[in-house]
């Protein structure tokens, strides 16, 4: 297949696309607007390309949104807001930092970020996994909910901003705190505010917890789950799992599935 044909109506964009291997293409995103870049991705998607490498990504939004067939995207550079919004069954690996709204309302798939990520990571996600090597911003995992056989998972290697797990109604957040010095605490406040489902595993103290959560020691089942997540995390980022697991963890659970049941007169 000739690359210039690939983009059909958008010939000017065709020069951006380079075939690397069967079903594997590279797109130079430098200087493109998000709509142009995502148009190229949608065209590749319709051609049932499996794997795409994006280079020189410069803050383009919505990478990975509205795709059905592409199964893997590598992002080199800095993707923009809402990467993987409404995403289903795709794996995105970012070699850099991600911005806000990453994994917004995603249904399934995987996002691996080799740097840090911004605010509202995984807003209302109901399935799939997000792993961040570094830190995340405010309101990570807000409105996350599990459903049927879907269980969303967020693993953060570093630390998190305030309101981690706000309104959380299911799934797992693991905050590994790898960058905490001995004895120092996460800056996060109001962790688990309004939480009414799911579990948050944490290494290191947080400055302030929401009124709806209770702090408990890990049980055997928790250890097994956490171990699995850490193994996967270390594989993704080429780290030593033993070192990560050889630390203290506790969990936050919601008091109730009905946090605001007592507000009304009748």
């Amino acid at each position, binding site marked *: 297949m000739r690359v210039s044909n690939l983009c059909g109506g958008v010939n000017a964009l065709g020069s951006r696309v380079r075939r690397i291997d069967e079903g594997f293409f590279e797109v130079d995103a430098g200087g493109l607007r*998000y709509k142009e870049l*995502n148009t190229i991705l*949608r065209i590749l998607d319709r051609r049932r390309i499996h794997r795409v490498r994006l280079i020189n990504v410069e803050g383009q*939004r*919505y990478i990975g*949104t*509205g795709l059905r067939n592409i199964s893997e995207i590598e992002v080199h550079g800095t993707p923009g*807001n*809402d990467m993987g*919004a*409404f995403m*289903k069954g795709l794996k995105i690996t970012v070699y850099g930092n991600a911005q*806000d*709204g990453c994994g*917004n*309302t995603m*249904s399934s798939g995987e996002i691996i970020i080799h740097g840090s990520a911004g605010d*509202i990571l995984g*807003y*209302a996600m*109901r399935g799939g996994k997000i792993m961040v090597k570094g830190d995340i911003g405010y*309101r990570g995992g*807000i*409105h996350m*909910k*599990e*459903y*049927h056989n*879907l269980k969303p998972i967020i693993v953060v290697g570093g630390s998190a901003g305030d309101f981690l797990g*706000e*309104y959380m*109604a*299911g799934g797992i957040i693991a905050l590994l705190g790898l960058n905490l010095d001995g004895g120092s605490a996460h800056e996060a406040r109001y962790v688990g505010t*309004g939480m*009414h*489902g799911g579990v948050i595993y944490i290494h290191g103290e947080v400055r302030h917890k929401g009124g709806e959560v209770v702090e408990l020691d890990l049980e055997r089942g928790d250890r097994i789950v956490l171990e699995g997540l850490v193994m996967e995390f270390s594989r993704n980022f080429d780290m030593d799992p033993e070192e990560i697991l050889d630390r203290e963890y506790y969990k936050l659970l919601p008091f109730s*599935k*009905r*946090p*605001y*049941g*007592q*507000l*009304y*007169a*009748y």
Partner: protein
Amino acid sequence: MKSYMLPEFNVYRDLERCVSCQVCVNQCTYMVHYYDEEEDLVKSREENCVGCLRCAMLCPTKALKIVPNPTSYRENHHWTRESISAIKVQAESGGVILTGMGCDKPQYTYWDRIVLNASQVTNPSIDPLREPMEIRTFLGKKPKELSIEAGSGRYSLTTELSPQLKLEMPIMFTAISYGAVSFNVHESLAMAASESGTYFNTGEGGLDRRLYRYGDHAIVQVASGRFGVDPSYLEVGAAVEIKIGQGAKPGIGGHLPGEKVSREISRTRMIPKGTDALSPAPQHDIYSIEDLSQLIYAIKEATGYAKPVSVKIAAVHNSAAIASGIVRAGADIIALDGIRGSTGAAPKIIRDNVGIPIELALASVDQRLRDEGIRNEASLVVAGGVRNSADVVKAIALGADAVYIGTAALIAIGCTVCQKCYMGRCPWGIATTDPWISKRVNPLIASKRLSNLLRAWSLEIKEMMGGMGINSIESLRGNREMLRGVGLTDKELSILGVRHAGE
């Protein structure tokens, strides 16, 4: 604690007519009627009665009368029965008073103080029975100009048009979520919208898989809790609506209590069974017009720019400026919901005091968008207490493209506006998720009633338009010359952009 509340209603049973058949016992979901075996009599616990009239309407011998309790507090225009009762309820419970339906206070209704014009002598009226009347409406962004290419006797449009919703009449069913109402009601609305060539709005509770076949006539809603929102949900709807606010409760969120989250509701909302479905007021990815734009375009990216995106807000003090921002953020449709907008549950104090009347909001938003030269960029849909076809005509003359009806549609199905939707025990089978009660709504019959209502209103709209000498809804839109105010102040008239009757 002893309750000092008086029963709201008295139940009078005519013992000469009552045959102790116990229909009322079976129909009342509030356990008002019960059968006393010893005396072979049906009796009442009238303190439970909410005045929904289910029993009175179904009693085969018409033996029941439900009468507002004449025993009330001493008459006082300031300390009304409502305000005294509210204090007693709160003194006994310490909680927020909930209510259902829209605001029931008279002071916010401007429709009744606006009258319509009709042709006499100087220009002819049109007889809609004889002549074609166009009330088909398209919702979506309209181009500023059209360019047409002529070539060898054929003309083709070269302007790229934005996606549009096509309505056979300027009336749609408003956002009512599955969970607030029963599945049967959702299905009835979906069926009637399909039959009548208009749209129903899923509300924020997702769309049940069984209703995906009505997707061409569904506007799917995305709200802060993102219930039931996944790629197939966005794909199946004809349009997507981002819910920012709701007229019945501007500034506060929704909250479906865990006991209502049954297996089916949990499947549709895609949340765990039995947990509270919390939909807080803010969407935490939207703190500004720029953020709103980001979500609008996320949805457009997810749906390949093939569907209009609507943004729904409650009518509040600065609606005009907010609406301008929404248009500039890229919305194709703005839905405005006024203070009389309805709800399944809201704190009464919010419902009755927060927001502004839709008539004023509509007039100011339409005017602002015109002044800024961006009125064509988005369609305007209004909601909040539209009761009849005259309200629809007045709304369109004030600048709306179409209206949403909610309460009117539920009344067509059977609702009697008893305002107890939040109890989840609606004896009419509407505002409930109880499978036993919700069987009372038969979707085949209910959708027929809804289609009849839309047909009747369409006929009336055509009559009124014909009377004004207008044969196309396009010529009525924003045509405020067809309106006059009665008993309104200069300020009210200037905001509405209409003159006083007699002028």
